[in-house]
């Protein structure tokens, strides 16, 4: 029995008693989905603080007009690397960590289908993160001029002109991309092949559906990004002219390729969390998820729409009127499937018996603040008004409502929701609630003023600004420091929970439903040695 259930074809003999060797070797060689999930999540948390520290330096510089702390060159490096780190090294690994830990538990699989690829997927990340940040340190020793300074968008020709930081970023993106594709392939084949008997696709948990769409989007779009940065690399070093008008190329081609990846990337980050939030909302409303099928259809619709709206990220680059109109209306139509999701989230709560534990608080915060992102996204789609919003702090505020409130706070809801299952201990509810309220207040304090800065005309990515923007920037900086520091509570709460605490029940939350709650907390090293039967559900 044990040979059939251990991970991978290289199933170890039962003699290891369900545990691998201790020490670093265990983590380097593990093919266990729980170990790998833990590594992904730990890495994500670590990089969340790295990326956060970078942006706090930026906010400190922006506290007052004038240059106080750094040169503009260094400022430009910080903003770009902050974005790359947060997107590729914090948010995406966090979602992949969830998938690794939870998908096998939730679908009754013994492990991921391709455990060794799983190990590879993770271990590509640390070198990628190193490549991304190494140029900062090389510059200290007089090698190169620092990290990539083009913003995360790497627009040519600025990136063709840039220093070695751009090359490092290109290779980091390749590694991160390979890691994402490996992870996606693994998730797709696991969901297709290792579901418990009787679990049809339309009985799949919504979290799995969200991840399935993300995985398909990653496989469709990461190669395009990889292609674009490879073209950038050959333009930089091998005399091609993909993006150089003098050689018959077009700088805007880069923007098309980048955003063909970049727009779906937003949904890549958010779909797993749109899948997660209904579970949390249903659990704490003690009610079944409302509109399961409608949500699945919306995930698919959003996935499809996401790859046909990319050019709304560069309306100001100029394009023919029919193209402008097409991208405007197709972008607006994304609001329909998104509205289905909002409707279902709220209908799930309707006439439930709601309690407000930390995961629920984060889920509710996610819903409300992500609502701001969705609604401002709707107005950004309008080409005429976009001429004012674009490249301004309005956009910065908009996508932080999407990616911090929608992304990071969604991840936090998930962490608090599943942490007792993973560790077998309850976290401190008091600290969790404190963390939530500090986060939600300081988040708004940080980013709400940025909407007004954008409306008043402050461009993004400037290290210094005109005097009329001073007050809002000061408020935003104060907010950002509270926001950053309150995340330490999060880390401390997790650490405490890993170390010990009140014993968690198998079914941690009263209203929780799903296979994962039938296993012990923490689950055995090999899940589902006894196959769950889904025929009767």
């Amino acid at each position, binding site marked *: 029995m044990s040979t059939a259930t251990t991970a991978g074809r290289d199933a170890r003999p039962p003699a290891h008693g369900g545990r691998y060797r201790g020490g670093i070797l265990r983590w380097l060689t593990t093919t266990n989905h729980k170990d790998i999930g833990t590594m992904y999540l730990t890495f994500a948390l670590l990089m969340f603080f790295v990326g956060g520290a970078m942006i706090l330096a930026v906010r400190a510089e922006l506290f007052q007009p004038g240059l*106080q702390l750094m040169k503009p060159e260094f400022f430009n490096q910080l903003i770009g690397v902050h974005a790359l780190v947060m997107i590729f090294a914090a948010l995406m690994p966090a979602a992949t960590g969830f998938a690794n830990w939870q998908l096998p538990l939730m679908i009754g699989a013994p492990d991921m289908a391709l455990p060794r690829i799983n190990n590879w997927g993770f271990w590509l990340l640390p070198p990628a993160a190193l490549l991304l940040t190494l140029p900062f340190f090389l510059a200290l020793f007089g090698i190169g001029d620092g990290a990539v300074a083009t913003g995360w968008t790497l627009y040519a020709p600025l990136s063709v002109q840039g220093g070695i930081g751009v090359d490092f970023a290109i290779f980091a993106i390749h590694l991160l991309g390979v890691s994402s594709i490996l992870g996606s392939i693994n998730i797709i084949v696991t969901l297709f092949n290792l579901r418990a008997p009787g679990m049809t696709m339309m009985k799949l948990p919504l979290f799995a559906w969200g991840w399935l769409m993300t995985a398909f989007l990653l496989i469709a779009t990461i190669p395009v990004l990889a292609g674009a940065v490879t073209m950038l690399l050959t333009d930089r070093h091998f005399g091609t002219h993909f993006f150089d008008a003098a050689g018959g190329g077009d700088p805007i081609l880069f923007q098309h390729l980048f955003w063909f990846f970049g727009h779906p990337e937003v949904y890549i980050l958010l779909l797993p969390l749109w899948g997660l939030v209904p579970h949390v909302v249903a659990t704490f409303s003690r009610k*079944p998820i409302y509109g399961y099928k409608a949500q699945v259809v919306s995930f698919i619709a959003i996935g499809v729409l996401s790859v046909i709206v990319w050019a709304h990220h560069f309306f*100001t680059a100029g394009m023919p009127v029919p193209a402008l109109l097409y991208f405007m209306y197709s972008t*607006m139509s994304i609001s329909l499937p998104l509205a289905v999701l909002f409707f279902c989230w709220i209908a799930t709560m309707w006439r439930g018996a*709601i309690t407000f534990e930390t995961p629920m608080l984060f889920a*509710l915060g996610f819903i409300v603040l992500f609502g701001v992102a969705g609604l401002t996204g709707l107005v950004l789609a309008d080409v005429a*008004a976009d001429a*004012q919003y674009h490249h301004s702090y309005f956009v910065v505020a908009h996508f932080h409502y999407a990616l911090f409130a929608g992304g990071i706070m969604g991840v936090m809801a998930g962490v608090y929701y599943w942490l007792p299952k993973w560790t077998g201990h309850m976290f401190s509810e008091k600290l969790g609630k404190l963390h939530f309220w500090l986060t939600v207040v300081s988040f708004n304090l940080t980013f709400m003023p940025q909407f007004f800065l954008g409306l008043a005309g402050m461009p993004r990515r400037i290290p210094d600004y005109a005097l009329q923007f001073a007050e809002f920037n000061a408020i935003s900086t104060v907010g950002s420091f509270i926001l950053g520091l309150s995340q330490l509570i999060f880390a401390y709460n997790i650490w405490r929970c890993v170390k010990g605490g009140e014993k968690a029940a198998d079914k941690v939350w009263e209203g929780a439903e799903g296979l994962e709650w039938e296993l012990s907390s923490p689950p055995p090293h090999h899940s589902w040695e006894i196959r769950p039967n889904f025929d009767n559900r």
Partner: protein
Amino acid sequence: MPRCFYLPAALLPSSACADYRWNFPEPVTPIARDTLHIHNEFMLIITALFVVVFAIMIYSMIAHRKSAGRPPARFSGPAGGVQWFWVLVPFAILLLIDFVLMGIPAYRAVVDMEDTRTRADMVLKVTGMQWKWQYEYPDSGIKYISTMSTPREQIGNREAKGEHYLLEVDNPVVLPVGKKVRILLTSTDVIHTWWVPQFGVKRDAIPGFLRETWVRIEEPGTYRGQCAELCGKDHGFMPVVVRAVPEAEYLAWADLKKAEQAAAAGGTDRVWSRDELLVKGKDVYAKQCAVCHQANGQGLPPAFPALSGSKIVAGPLLSPAGKLMKDSHLDRVLNGKEGSAMQAFGNTLSDTELAAVVTFERNSFGNTGGDLIQPAQIKSLR
């Protein structure tokens, strides 16, 4: 304080938002007025949506809390015609909002915004370059460069900041009020974006391509904006300043500017003394070169090499036959260096300015080339 966001300025008495800190700055073109109008309408719509949707949610949070003591319902989807009706109504409303309430005004505004050619009275060509703007009036042959005039001392906090800190230039664009100006944009190096918030106009300047937009300024005044696309280290320091004046004043300014340019070009034919060249060169260097190569010529290596002690600067000025040599100092200044921020100044500076700045660089920062070049020589090399 930030909740004012949900009360767009349109709702407030205009005095309360006189300085428009909560909204777009005061519009002075038809496009900007349209944009502000659309923006206010959209903000009202999304605010209403936000309030209605989350009022329902908050009602549910309170009424359906566990401590209220009712057992949870078990439904997981609409059942029956009436429920389906209520489920579909919000989506019908959203369709209406997307494609009628928002879609139709947006359509009109887009078509208007992109109509750059109909009845255009004049053309302004804007060229972005790291990190300044060049303005060209093809009708009258005027062409000049506009750079930020805020002193570095203010940026470094060694001096009090002026009223228009970072939003002031040496040579503003001058445009006549009430005329439809077709604006053509391009760039010499990387992508820049020309943005004046009060015009409601923001358009990228893309190297090797022409993009266009238009303005019709309705009020005389000085309007300020900035480059909006990250374009390198001094992206934050390339403001746009437009002075809108009545047509008569504009014509007078154009005549004056033409005369000035003719005078500047006139110097090409005479022989300049070494001291004259050095004085003028110092001035040109401060405006055009010091941003990267620094006032002391030490540069910011490796992106921006030092001129002090540079092998290229120390190399011969011209070949023995008096021709331009590839990769020489003069070649770099005239034609730039591909793949770097060093641009082809031959396109933007006059013969006199080029001769002066090259002479200055060869004889400053400890460089002792000792040689000089005359504007006439530059002219013949072009």
